Structures are given as structure tokens and as C-alpha cells.
């Protein structure tokens, strides 16, 4: 039995993977990676479409399951230290947080949890709730990822000393799917990523008043009628969904306008109408003869 399932989120979405893990009651770690292009192409199941081959690079996220329940999640780019999680959840104040990070920097989460509970800083419930919140936030975020390579490692548990809080996957999948619908809606509103963006006549005023996040600014800095939205996403290392969200926001705020792409979109496949052929049902003796023959081949 293979102990790994490999693929990319382009082919199997996070929700599909969670569904699989839930139904099959799997134990192990689902790791998502930065995609590294090999420079080669793979051929898709239709025998014609090519796609750049992408293999796992640096790990970006990991979620862990025990018997089909979500128990742990971490994002590589995020500080997953328990003290940070509690601080973010307002269970530790700034000063407590600073002290802990200085004095207990090397303590494992479990050791730290004991310390904090004994010192009456937080309760066990606080810890469980904060971790659960943190885990869910990460998983909901992962549901918006659309292209990363993944590996599910059967049996692999979280790093030592981490606290695991079991969460039923059904609810996560339902919640996540609702969020996905919103994103689907976005895809409908902004279907063509080959469009380019430009500033309206007098954007300067508006841009000054609007508070843009770092990500938005990055996108804005690439705005040029020559750059398609897709190219901007690539330059900013964003997924389709991420760029859609941002562009949609910028469009609604009237900060940018869409510009038609130069070239026509690729030809769409024309499917022929189906007509049902007449079938004469085979006779039972024919089938039994076939069975006997194939058995003895």
C-alpha cells in the first residue's frame, strides 16, 4: 500500500481532499508546497492539452488529521508559536506576550501551556479555543488556494510538543464550501484574467484617500494596459482567486478599469448533440459463455 497521495490543487481541490480524508477516516499530514516548474510539460487526459509540470518545492502549509478529524494546522510563513496564537486571540496582553517570548522561547507548546495554566494566565479552555480558531483560519485560507502541489503522508503526525485539538471535518467542509461559493461568484464577475487593467482618467485623488493593503499596492504597481491580470498575478505570486479578490475590490472602488485583451480567447470546444443508438440486448447464454471462456484464458 502506498503511503502517499500526490497531486496538485489544480486537479483536486482542498475541499475534495478534506472530503476524502473525512470519508476514509485517514490519519496523516496533508502538506502543501510551493510549485516549482520543471520546465517540462505534462499532457492532460485529453491527450492534447499541455500544462507545465510542477513539483513540490518549499513547504507552505501543513494540516494534520487523526482518524478523519482535523487536529492541527500550520502555515510556514506564519508564526505558529502558542504564545503568538494566544496573543492574537487577546488571551495574553502585550507585556505577558513579550515576557513569554523572551523567557520561554524554547519551550514546546505543551510545556508552555502547562506553565501558563499553572500561572493562571489562561485557562485550558482559552488555549483549546484559540488553537481551534487558529487551525480553522488556516484551513479556510487553504481552501482558496488553487494550484499548489500536495502530498498526503499517511500516518505522519504534527511536530513534537504541538497541541492538537480535534475538529470535525464536516462543518469545516460546509463552511469552506460556502466561502468557495463567494469566490465562484467572484470568478463569474471577473471571468477573464486575460484582461488588462488601467487607471481611470483621474485616479490620483482616489488612490490617496483609499487605504490599500500591501497586496493591493503590489497589484497596483503592476497596472499597465500591456499587463494582463494573469501576468500581474504571476508577478505578485498570487493565485487566480487572490488576484480576483483584489482586482474585484479595486474595480468596485473605481480605482481601475478593465481593458480588453488584444487577442481573441482560445477556441471553445464544440460538443455534438447526443443521439441514442438502438441496442439489442444480449442473450444470457452469450454472457455465460463469455465468462467461461475468459476464466479459462
Amino acid at each position, binding site marked *: *500500500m*502506498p503511503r*502517499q*497521495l*500526490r*497531486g*496538485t490543487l*489544480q*486537479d*483536486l481541490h482542498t475541499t*475534495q481532499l478534506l*472530503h*476524502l480524508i473525512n*470519508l*476514509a477516516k485517514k490519519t496523516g499530514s496533508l502538506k502543501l508546497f510551493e510549485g516549482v516548474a520543471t520546465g*517540462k*510539460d*505534462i*499532457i*492532460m*487526459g*485529453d*491527450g*492534447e492539452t*499541455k*500544462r507545465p509540470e510542477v513539483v513540490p518545492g518549499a513547504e507552505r502549509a501543513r494540516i494534520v488529521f487523526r482518524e478523519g478529524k482535523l487536529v492541527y494546522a500550520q502555515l510556514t510563513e506564519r508564526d505558529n508559536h502558542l504564545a503568538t496564537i494566544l496573543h492574537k486571540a487577546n488571551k495574553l496582553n502585550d507585556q505577558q506576550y513579550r515576557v513569554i517570548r523572551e523567557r520561554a522561547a524554547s519551550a514546546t507548546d505543551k510545556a508552555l501551556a502547562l506553565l501558563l495554566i499553572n500561572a493562571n494566565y489562561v485557562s485550558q479552555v482559552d488555549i483549546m479555543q484559540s488553537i481551534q480558531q487558529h487551525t480553522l483560519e488556516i484551513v479556510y485560507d487553504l481552501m482558496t488556494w488553487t494550484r499548489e502541489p500536495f502530498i498526503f503522508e499517511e500516518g505522519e503526525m504534527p511536530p513534537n510538543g504541538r497541541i492538537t485539538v480535534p475538529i470535525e471535518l464536516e462543518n469545516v467542509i460546509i463552511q469552506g464550501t460556502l466561502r468557495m461559493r463567494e469566490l465562484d461568484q467572484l470568478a463569474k464577475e471577473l471571468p477573464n484574467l486575460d484582461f488588462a487593467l488601467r487607471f481611470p482618467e483621474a485616479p490620483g485623488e482616489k488612490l490617496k484617500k483609499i487605504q490599500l493593503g500591501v497586496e493591493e499596492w503590489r497589484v497596483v504597481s503592476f497596472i499597465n494596459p500591456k499587463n494582463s491580470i494573469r501576468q500581474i498575478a504571476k508577478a505578485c505570486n498570487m493565485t487566480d482567486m487572490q488576484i480576483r479578490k483584489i482586482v474585484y475590490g479595486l474595480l468596485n472602488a473605481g480605482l481601475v478599469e478593465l481593458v480588453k485583451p488584444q487577442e481573441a480567447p482560445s477556441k471553445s*470546444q464544440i460538443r*455534438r448533440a*447526443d*443521439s*441514442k*443508438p*438502438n*441496442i*439489442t*440486448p*444480449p442473450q*444470457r447464454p*452469450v*454472457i*455465460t*459463455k*463469455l*465468462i467461461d*471462456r*475468459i*476464466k479459462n*484464458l
Partner: protein
Amino acid sequence: MATTTVKMVITGPYASGKTEFIRSISEIDVVSTEKEVTPDTYEATIKPETTVAMDFGRITIDDELVLYLFGTPGQRRFDFMWEILAEGMLGFVVMVDSTKPETFREAKAILETFRAYAPTPYVVAANKQDMDDAWPAEDLRIALRIEDNVKLLPCVAKDKDKVKAVLLELLYSILEEMDT
């Protein structure tokens, strides 16, 4: 006495193992209309030869009965052939390359298309189970959303016994269908 011929269709995404499957069981060399693929085309990096028409295998039962196995053409651009192939088939096998998640969606689409052509029984073969990175059949069932009442069988197309088992399961399903 006139010979009765019956046929089954082996379908599935490109490079899922259709030709291999038919080759393993056919009593004649698989007649496939292969077109030479020049080495510089990208397809050549996937597999050395590309089936542009279809595979054709035969199993003679007796003087009166012959079973033909037809493999569907590899590329979508030949899917106009599918319906012709589907006509009058006893049933069909959907081959899935269990090592290539990028083809799962296509496999499901092909399955649905064939199902719409004819209400005959079918089975799904989770092929290439001899390879390390193969998805197990039961995980494939969930990933492809294959209903529980559809047989999903582990398969190695190079292995005659595995191929026999898949065809037998399809035939059992055909018998069951007759009983209902």
C-alpha cells in the same frame, strides 16, 4: 451458422493503459492504427507511440461467438468516434491512470459521456496499481466521485490475470443487469 459478434469498449484518458489492457488479453496482436510520432513532438515524451485511431482486440469463444474489444482513440479530437464505438456494446471499462491526478477529471468526464451514450453496465479500472505513486482504488473512488454501486477495480494492464478479473467483473454486472 453465422457468427455472433459482441463488443466491449475500453475507454479512458490518454495514456491510461487502454492499449496495454487489450494487448494483454487479445488473441490477435492488437490492431491499432498507430501514427508515427516524430520525436520532437511533445507527445513523444509521454509515450513513444500515439494511437490516433483505435485499438482492436479479439477473443474467440467458439465457432459461433466472438468478442471484440475496442479501445477508444487517445485524443479528444477523435471523440466523434466514441458514439460509433458505443453503439451496441455489451458494456465498457473506464481505465484510470491511478498515478496521474491531472487526468482524473477527464476520466470522470469520459465516464459520464459514455454513460449518456448507452445505459449498459460499466466498471472503472484503477490502473497502474503496480506503481509506487498510484492512488489506492478506494481513494480514487472518493476523488472521482464514483458511486458505491459501481465496481472500481484495482488493475495492472500488463498483468493478464488482473485484466481477466476486470472483464469478468464487467460480465457479472451485465448478468446482474439482466436479472433485474
